[in-house]
């Protein structure tokens, strides 16, 4: 990992408790600029919660987080300003269902960044072209396939020119034949040098694109390292059995 530069994400002693259920039990994590980190682990291991803590969609119970140059857990944190620099893509796409595709990609630029209309539209068109959505500008989200919706959601996040992108199981709600188009866009994004934190079950994506893979279980990072190491030669029994279940579900 790049140690000279300040990491773009720094998590220290992060704990998150929902009632009696402690989902995260002390997470330390640094992500360098341009790094692609994949979070894997069984359901309930805290992957999504960790991701959602980075932009404070979940408020940590304890610990500190800095992300994209913002002190997220500080008492005077301007979360709205911070989130402009942190794009997020959701499992269920969450496109604004009452707006057209074009408006989905321009709305935050216009209402949050106060970008002039023409500029916002031009930027939206560029981003939509980047994710391979063309000629759908006036369509409503429900008229698009899941894969198309998720690509629009990526374009919507990119239009804010984020320094960091968070992906929360972006392909888990997709029909299998639509997974590839979304992963393709993400791969392109990684190649352009975007810093990405990705919760995923797509091991081939992790193997091919990630600089580092983190295996979470029981709210702690159990293994961390290059994908070749973690995915091919896991050191712990927990990671071994998880990967076996993922890669050979029928056994």
């Amino acid at each position, binding site marked *: 990992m790049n140690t000279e530069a300040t990491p773009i994400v720094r998590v220290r002693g992060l704990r998150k408790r929902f009632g009696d259920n402690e989902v995260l039990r002390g997470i330390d994590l640094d992500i360098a600029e341009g790094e692609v980190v994949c979070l894997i682990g069984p359901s309930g291991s805290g992957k999504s919660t960790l991701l959602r803590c980075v932009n404070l*969609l979940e408020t940590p119970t304890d610990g500190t987080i800095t992300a994209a140059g913002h002190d997220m857990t500080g008492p005077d944190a301007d979360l709205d300003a911070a989130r402009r620099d942190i794009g997020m893509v959701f499992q269920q796409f969450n496109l604004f269902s009452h707006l057209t595709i074009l408006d989905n990609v321009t709305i*935050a630029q216009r209402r*949050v960044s106060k970008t002039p209309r023409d500029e916002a539209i031009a930027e939206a068109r560029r981003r939509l072209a980047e994710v391979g959505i063309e000629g759908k500008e006036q369509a409503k989200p429900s008229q698009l396939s899941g894969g198309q919706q998720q690509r629009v959601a990526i374009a919507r996040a990119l239009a804010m020119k984020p320094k960091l992108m968070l992906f929360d199981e972006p392909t888990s709600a997709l029909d299998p034949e639509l997974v590839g188009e979304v992963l393709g866009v993400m791969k392109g994004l990684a190649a352009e040098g975007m810093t990405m934190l990705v919760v995923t079950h797509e091991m081939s994506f992790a193997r091919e694109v990630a600089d580092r893979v983190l295996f979470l279980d029981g709210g702690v990072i159990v293994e961390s390292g290059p994908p070749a190491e973690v995915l091919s030669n896991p050191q712990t029994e927990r990671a071994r059995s998880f990967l076996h279940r993922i890669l050979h579900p029928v056994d």
Partner: protein
Amino acid sequence: MDAATDTGAEPLDRRMTPRQRRRLSRAIQYAVLAAVVIALAVVADWGRIADSFFQLDIAAAMFPAVWTPFWNTIVYTLLAFVFGMVVGVPIALMRVSTFGPYRWFATGYVEIFRGLPALLVLFLVGFGVPQAFPGIQYPGGVYGQVAIGLGLTSSAYIAESVRAGIQAVPKGQIEAARSLGMSHTRTMVTVVLPQALRIVIPPLTNELVMLTKDSSLVFVLGVTTATMELSKFARNELTSEANATPLLVGGLLYLLLTIPLGLLARRLEKRGETR
């Protein structure tokens, strides 16, 4: 038939199939309906009914004077609805606020104006408030009184509908908006409210129909010929003509308003489904 199925002694072909049974049951229901219609036709004194309700000359004499109260009914309804929306939507937002005092105030407001009869609120606005605050002037005179008097009750119902709509907007929509850097208020205005209002179009149309009918309470404020609404007008005609035809005409004019509204609501609801 019961005996046949119970004993099972009858040969199979004497029993009825489910389809035959259904047909018989249908036939009996039609027979009852026909009997009721015939009985009514025979028992009712049609001449007298026609005399009471269908006197064309009396009906004709109501026109064109009836258009003023008809128009007033529409105006009262719309004024109250606009007041209801202008007050009800902010109350709904306060109901879902994270700030306690807003929530408490809004809850109290809704409980009070939903619980009080519209007639009583109208009395309060028309007579109670002017007595307590002498010299108070409602903007637009009786129109202002009606907007507030009926609008207060209506705003409580509208607030509850809109609150339900707000809570029906998926949480993911809010998270997506916040993740793009929208503030809480911006998220409400740009994402949540537009979706919530779409969801509550059917109940709001319903509220408009209710208000159309509640405008008949306006007479208690003491209205003049110029500010009279439809029910009061019909009742006056009823008294002066000693005949019920004006009630029929008035009723038909109400339906002329409410039935298209109902159709509109159904259409909007359908469009919401296919969206």
